[in-house]
C-alpha cells in the first residue's frame, strides 16, 4: 500500500469543479512531482491533502489513516508537512523561532508548565531548540538562526521554510513550487537538498513545480494535472513522450511552459 492514497477526489467551488475525480498515490520514500499548466488545480490538490480545503467527494488515506475530514493541524500531526507557494514565514520572529513552530505538535507543555518551569517543560524546551537547530543545519541555514526570518535573502527564506516543515517530523513533505524565484545555483542546491531529505531522513517528497528541467531530474514519478483532471502519470521519460501532456501545455495561450 502506498503512503498517501487519493481516491476520486472531487472539489468544487461555487459550482466550478476544481478537482475532478483525482486518483493519485505517493509511495513511501519516493520523490513525486505534480505538474500542469497554471490553474490546473495543483495547489488546490495540496490544500485538499493538508486539510485546508474540504473536497466534496473522495477519500484520502495516509498510512492507513483517513485524513479527508481532519483539520490542517491534525493532518500535520499525522505526518504530512508542507511549504507554501509564496513563502509564509512568521514576521518579526527569528529564523530559529520560526523553525521551532514545527515542534509544536510534537510537544505538549502548557501554561502551567511555562509558569512553574517544571523539569519536564525545560527538557521539552531544550528538545525544541535542539531539533530546530538540527533542521536548520540540515537545510544549510543554521548560521542565520538569530536573524529575523523575513530579512533573509529569498533563497534562504525558502530553505528556512523547508526546515520549518521538517521540524514537524513528517513522513511526507509537500513542496509548493520550491524552485520559484531561485537562481540557477540555488536550484542545484535545492535538488541536492530534496535528494537528501529522502535519502537521509526517509521522507517522501511531493512537489509542485514549473521548472520542468528540475522536475525531470529529481522525480521518480510525475503526475500531470490539467483542468482538475489527472491526465497522465508515469516516469519522467513516459511523461515527456505523452501526447496528452504535450497538448495540455501547447494548448495554453502563452505557448506552454514545458520544454521537452
Amino acid at each position, binding site marked *: 500500500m502506498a503512503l498517501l492514497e487519493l481516491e476520486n477526489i472531487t472539489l468544487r467551488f461555487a459550482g466550478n469543479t476544481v478537482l475532478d475525480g483525482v486518483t493519485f498515490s505517493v509511495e513511501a520514500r519516493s520523490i513525486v512531482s505534480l505538474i500542469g499548466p497554471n490553474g490546473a488545480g495543483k495547489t488546490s490538490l495540496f490544500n485538499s491533502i*493538508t486539510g*485546508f480545503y474540504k473536497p466534496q467527494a473522495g477519500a484520502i488515506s495516509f498510512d492507513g489513516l483517513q485524513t479527508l475530514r481532519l*483539520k*490542517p*493541524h491534525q493532518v*500535520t*500531526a499525522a505526518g504530512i*508537512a*508542507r511549504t*507554501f507557494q509564496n513563502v*509564509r*514565514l*512568521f*514576521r*518579526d*520572529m527569528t529564523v530559529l*523561532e520560526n523553525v*521551532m*513552530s*514545527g*515542534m*509544536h*505538535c*510534537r*510537544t505538549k*507543555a*502548557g*501554561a502551567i*508548565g*511555562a*509558569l512553574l*518551569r517544571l523539569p519536564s*517543560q525545560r527538557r*521539552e*524546551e531544550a528538545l*525544541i531548540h535542539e531539533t530546530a537547530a538540527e533542521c536548520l543545519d540540515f537545510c544549510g541555514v543554521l548560521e542565520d538562526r538569530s536573524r*529575523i526570518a523575513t530579512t533573509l535573502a529569498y533563497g534562504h527564506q525558502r530553505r528556512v521554510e523547508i526546515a*520549518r*516543515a521538517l*521540524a*514537524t517530523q513528517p513522513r511526507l513533505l509537500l513542496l509548493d513550487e520550491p524552485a520559484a524565484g531561485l537562481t540557477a545555483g540555488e536550484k542545484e542546491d535545492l535538488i541536492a537538498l530534496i535528494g537528501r531529505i529522502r535519502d537521509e531522513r526517509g521522507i517522501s517528497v511531493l512537489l509542485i513545480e514549473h521548472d520542468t528541467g528540475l522536475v525531470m531530474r529529481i522525480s521518480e514519478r510525475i503526475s500531470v494535472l490539467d483542468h482538475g483532471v489527472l491526465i497522465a502519470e508515469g516516469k519522467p521519460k513516459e511523461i515527456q513522450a505523452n501526447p496528452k501532456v504535450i497538448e495540455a501545455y501547447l494548448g495554453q495561450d502563452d505557448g506552454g511552459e514545458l520544454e521537452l
Partner: protein
Amino acid sequence: MIVRSPATSPMGRLQAVWDDKRLRYPLVAVIFALMAIAPHVLGPYATVILTNALLYVVLCLGLNIVVGYAGLLDLGYAAFFAVGAYTIGIVHHVLGLDFWLTLPLAVLAAAAAGIIIGSPTLRLRSDYLAIVTLGFGEIVRLSARNLQITGGASGISGIEQPWLFGWHISSPLDFYYVFCVLAVFAVIASLRLADSRLGRAWLYVRHDEDAAEAMGIDRVKVKLAAYVTGAIFGAIGGAFFAVNLSAISPESFSFRQSVLVLMAVVLGGMGKIPGVILGAFIVILGPELLRDLGDMRLLVFAVGLLLIMLFRPSGIWPRSR
C-alpha cells in the same frame, strides 16, 4: 532633518538599559526600592493612586496576553475583572468562606466564563470576537446590576479583608504592598509565558493563522488558552480590587473600564511588557498629574494620547529588534 536614532530618544535609552543584561538586575533593584519607599515619600493620597496603577498593571498584562500576544481584540475585558470581584463578594456573603479559599473559585469562575464565551467565538475571525466580547462585557455588568445576589445597582459591601499569616491586610498601605507583589507576579508570569511553547504559538497564530495550522498548531485551542489566561489575570485583579475597597458596584466594571485597559495596552505597545506597564501608569497617573487643569484635564489628556498614537502608532515602547 535630524533623524533620531532609537538609542538617543528617551524611550530608546530606557529600552537600551532594559535590554542590557548587566544593567537589568540593578534596574530591577532600583525599581523595587522605589516601589518600597514611594508611599512613605509621596503620602497617603499618592499611595491610593499608585495602588490603582498597580491594579492596572495586572489587568493590562492580562489583556496584553489576549490582545498583544494572541492578537484577539477583546472589548469586554472588564467582564472578567467583574467575575473575579463578584465571586469574592458573593461567596463571602453566601458561604462566608475565607478570601484565600475564595480566590481559586474566582479564578475557576473566570476560566469557565472564558471558555463559555471563547469556545464558540474563537472559531470565527477576530472582528466577530470584538463584537461578542463587547456584548459579553455589557451582559455581565447589566446582570450584576439587576440580579439580587449581586446586590443590584448598589452592589455588595462589607466584604471582609483578608488575613495572611496573622497579618490583617486592611490599610491602604497594606494593599499597596499586596498590589506590588501581584504586579511583580503578573510580570514574571507574562515573561515566562512569552518565552514558552504556548507563548510562541500565540505569536505564530497572530502572524499567520494558516502557516501556524500547517505547522500543527490548533489555532482555536491556542487562542482559547490566551483568552482564558487573560481572564484569570483579570479575575485575580478583580478579587483583590473587591477586598481592597471592601465594596463593589456594577459601575466599576463598565465599558469605559474595558476601554481604559485596552488603551493602556495599545498605548504602551502591544506585546511589550515594559511598554504595557508604562501604559498602565500613564492611563492612571496622567489624569491625576493634570488635576490642576480642572475641567480641562481629560481634554488635555486625550489630546496627549492622540499625539502619542500619531507619532508612535505602534506604542511608546520601541520595537525590540
